[in-house]
Every structure is written in structure tokens, then in C-alpha cells.
């Protein structure tokens, strides 16, 4: 899986996740899908509604967000490609919690944010048998 994202949208994600530090933040990715390449054309931050005292290591998208963005993408002939979230002061690799809650054929962008600085972005996809993730290629395009 190859995920293409414009530099501006990449920076939008980083800004959002730096702003939510030391808590986790996240949002949805909308765009186009062609063969094994997904191209992000929109980034939509959403509210983290996990219990406030747990948000330093948990993210849960607000109720209704998935439906809203999926309906919007479907209506415009676009695709809800996946979502992004941060791992504060931790690596940008999926956790067991991520695996249990993950969906196949979705792009999982994880950003490591350390001391309020975004240090790494990686993209993952759940394997069909749900046993783990495969890392995808992240391509950031100059804008």
C-alpha cells in the first residue's frame, strides 16, 4: 500500500497532533484510490472522546464522525481512506490496542510526537487475518 499526501496536508496533521500533545489526537483521511495507491486530498481532525484522564494513551473518534465523513466521501465519489492518530512519547508503530480495533483495507497513519514535536510519521495496514500490520510506503509530495 502506498499513501500519497501533499506536504501541506502532512503539515496540517503534524500541527494538529502537536496541539493535542501530551494527549493523543486523530482524524480521518479522504481521497482517491487507484490500484494499491491511495492519495489523500483532505484531512479532517476529530475530537478525542476517550475519558479525559486516559487520552494520553487512548484515542476514540467522536460519535457520528465515521458516518459523517463516510457519507460525505461517498456522495462526492471520494473514498474514506483511513485515519491518523498520534502516539505521544512513543514510536509510530501499532500497539496491540491498535490491532484489536483496526479494520482491514484502511490506511493507519501513526505519528510519534515527543516533547511536543512530531518526529516521525508512518503508515500501516491491518493484515487480512487480523494478526498484525504491514507497513506501507508514505510519499509526501511538495506543494
Amino acid at each position, binding site marked *: 500500500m502506498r499513501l500519497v499526501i501533499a506536504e501541506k496536508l502532512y503539515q496540517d496533521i503534524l500541527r494538529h497532533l502537536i496541539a493535542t500533545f501530551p494527549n*493523543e489526537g*486523530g482524524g*480521518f483521511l479522504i481521497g482517491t484510490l487507484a490500484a494499491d495507491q491511495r492519495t489523500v486530498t483532505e484531512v479532517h481532525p476529530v475530537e478525542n472522546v*476517550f475519558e479525559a484522564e486516559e487520552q494520553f*494513551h*487512548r*484515542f*476514540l*473518534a467522536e460519535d457520528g*464522525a*465515521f*458516518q459523517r465523513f*463516510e457519507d460525505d*466521501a*461517498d456522495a462526492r465519489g471520494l*473514498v*474514506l481512506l*483511513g*485515519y491518523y*492518530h498520534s*502516539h*505521544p512519547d*512513543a*514510536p509510530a*508503530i*501499532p*500497539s*496491540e*490496542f*491498535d*490491532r*484489536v*480495533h483496526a*479494520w*482491514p*483495507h*484502511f490506511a*493507519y497513519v*501513526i505519528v510519534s510526537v515527543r516533547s511536543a514535536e512530531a518526529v516521525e510519521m508512518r503508515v*500501516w495496514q491491518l493484515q*487480512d*487475518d*487480523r494478526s*498484525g*500490520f504491514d*507497513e506501507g510506503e508514505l510519499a509526501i509530495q511538495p506543494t
Partner: protein
Amino acid sequence: MTSIKIPTPLRAYTGGQAEITVSGDTVAAVLEDLTGQFPELRSHLFNDGQLRDFVNIFIGDEDIRFRQGLETGVHSDDRLRIIPSIAGGLVVFVS
């Protein structure tokens, strides 16, 4: 017959179809029909025969967990939808 909307990440298992026509007079029967048509969906919806915690089934705007769960009745004009909870977080790394 009624219809059920498939979430984007599972459409790879329904030939890209977003809406599937299904039959059944309860949610359980509808999901049985759906997974009979598309068996690859089963492992992503159920775990040991139970609906996964982060899989939500709605009839219209109502979550079936606030009705009778899988035994909630389904009428022919109902529109069902599978809605994933989108969550992430840190605990133990697996990759």
C-alpha cells in the same frame, strides 16, 4: 428484504458494493444472511460468535445495543448500517 450499508474498509469483501440487499427478521438473521453471501466479513464482525465490541449495528439512527441487541426486530423498510468505532492507543507493541 432490506438493505445494509457496508463500511468502506469492508467493501473489499463485498466486491466494492456499499449497499447489500439482505433478508431476515432480526439483526442476527440479517447478519447471518450477509456473512453467508460474503463469508470473509465474518471474522471482522464476530469474535467467537459474538459481535466484536467495536462493531456497531444501527437501524436508522439507533444503535441496536440500546434496543434488543442482535435480537432486535428488522422490518422490510429498515435501513441497517455497520459502523466501526475508530480507536487507537498505546499499550504493547506488536510489530
